[in-house]
């Protein structure tokens, strides 16, 4: 049933992603980005995707490669404009890709809401700004709030550090970022990790993503990239 499956390859991990799917992609810049899963998704061929991620790709790798391959119809993100986001910039300026800009905290909280069964929530972020347009406003205890709705994914592709065979996850440092939230918000959560260990090998007090949120795990030789001063 829901129990996580350890698969042999990144290609097996992304099997079944349909054209038009909404895919949550982990990472803040390149930290935590699931490079191998994205490359497998490019090989897999699904197109017309909606990608939910904090950024819109750096350089030519990861999310930028998926965008360059023409598979993405729309990006939902908080910070597309970076020094090395030339792939997205070109597609955006030529009208080949749609952008929904969401403040970073709303991006995280709206995915949390999806995972937590919250129908909508009132948040003060963006009050009085252009990003409040089209949103319902309400005053509570003298403060103004906007109504925000959940963001759900058909798939989440995330990177973590260690998994046990049941699917419990730990992360490394700030590469944790969106992984734990996205894992709760997708119908199918796919994780690439550096290492898979036996159940019982992770400290139960230090598990960050409990196994219930994980569907497929693949162990890879994770490559790590830095972006110097990019944002």
């Amino acid at each position, binding site marked *: 049933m829901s129990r996580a499956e350890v698969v042999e390859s990144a290609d097996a991990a992304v099997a079944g992603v349909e054209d038009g799917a909404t895919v949550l992609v982990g990472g803040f810049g390149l930290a935590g980005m699931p490079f191998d899963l994205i490359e497998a998704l490019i090989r897999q061929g699904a197109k017309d995707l909606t990608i939910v991620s904090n950024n819109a790709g750096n350089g030519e790798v990861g999310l930028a490669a998926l965008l360059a391959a023409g598979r993405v119809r729309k990006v939902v993100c908080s910070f597309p404009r970076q020094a090395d986001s030339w792939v997205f910039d070109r597609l955006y300026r030529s009208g080949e890709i749609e952008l929904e800009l969401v403040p970073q905290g709303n991006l995280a909280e709206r995915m949390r809401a999806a995972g937590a069964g919250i129908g909508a929530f009132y948040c003060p972020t963006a009050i009085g700004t252009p990003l409040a347009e089209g949103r319902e406003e309400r005053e509570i205890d003298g403060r103004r709030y906007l109504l925000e709705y959940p963001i759900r994914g058909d798939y989440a592709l995330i990177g973590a550090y260690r998994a046990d065979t049941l699917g419990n996850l730990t992360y490394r440092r700030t590469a944790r970022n969106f992984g734990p939230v996205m894992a709760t918000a997708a119908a199918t959560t796919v994780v690439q990790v550096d290492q898979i260990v*036996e159940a019982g090998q992770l400290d139960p007090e230090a598990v960050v993503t*409990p196994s219930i949120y994980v569907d497929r795990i693949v162990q890879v030789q994770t490559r790590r990239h830095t972006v110097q001063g990019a944002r």
Partner: protein
Amino acid sequence: MTHANDPSAGAPMRADHPLSMDELAAVIAADIPSGAFVNLGIGQPTRIADHLSASSGVVLHTENGMLNMGPRAEGDAVDPDLTNAGKVPVTELPGAAYFHQADSFAMMRGGHLDVCVLGAYQVGFQGDLANWHTGAPDAVPAVGGAMDLAIGAKEVHVMMPLFTRSDQPKLVPLCTYPLTGVGCVSRVYTDHGVFEVGARGVRIRETYGVGARELARRLGITDPDTPPTG
């Protein structure tokens, strides 16, 4: 994540007597799909854990903040910092994880549990659940996580004796006790039989020590789907 429960999964038990709660717990345990994430309510449903084999891969959730809860702790294994939702000391299985209350209820309310099995005062034919309050004016009300499980688990099952001590049915056309959740229960396990309930009404899946027609008559069930034998 796929739907945890297939109504045809449980091999019907042929019994010529009403089941004890322990026998019933074994029936329920056999119905739980391998690898499912399950919450067992306080009281009778906790017995189900005793009938789950390790090989089933069923993972137990306890709402006070843990996955992969093990059996009740005995003797030196008792740790006051490790209890189930009934505040009974329990143990930890390999692959356990701890989390705080907001995270635990996010898990419950977000639809991630495959099955929960709860006790009940009454269940309505349409799946309404009453299990938190008798409505008696001098009663101290207490709800705990029952309403969260009722709206949150993919499948809400009930385990209860079919009749009260004064022989009143607890599976009823409409609950008279205050509700815990509306239309949330899909299956009711009782000592006299197993029932599928919900928007399409009630259907008897199997009976124990009583004929289906007789049971349908006692409960006032008129659904033609009810099988003719018991």
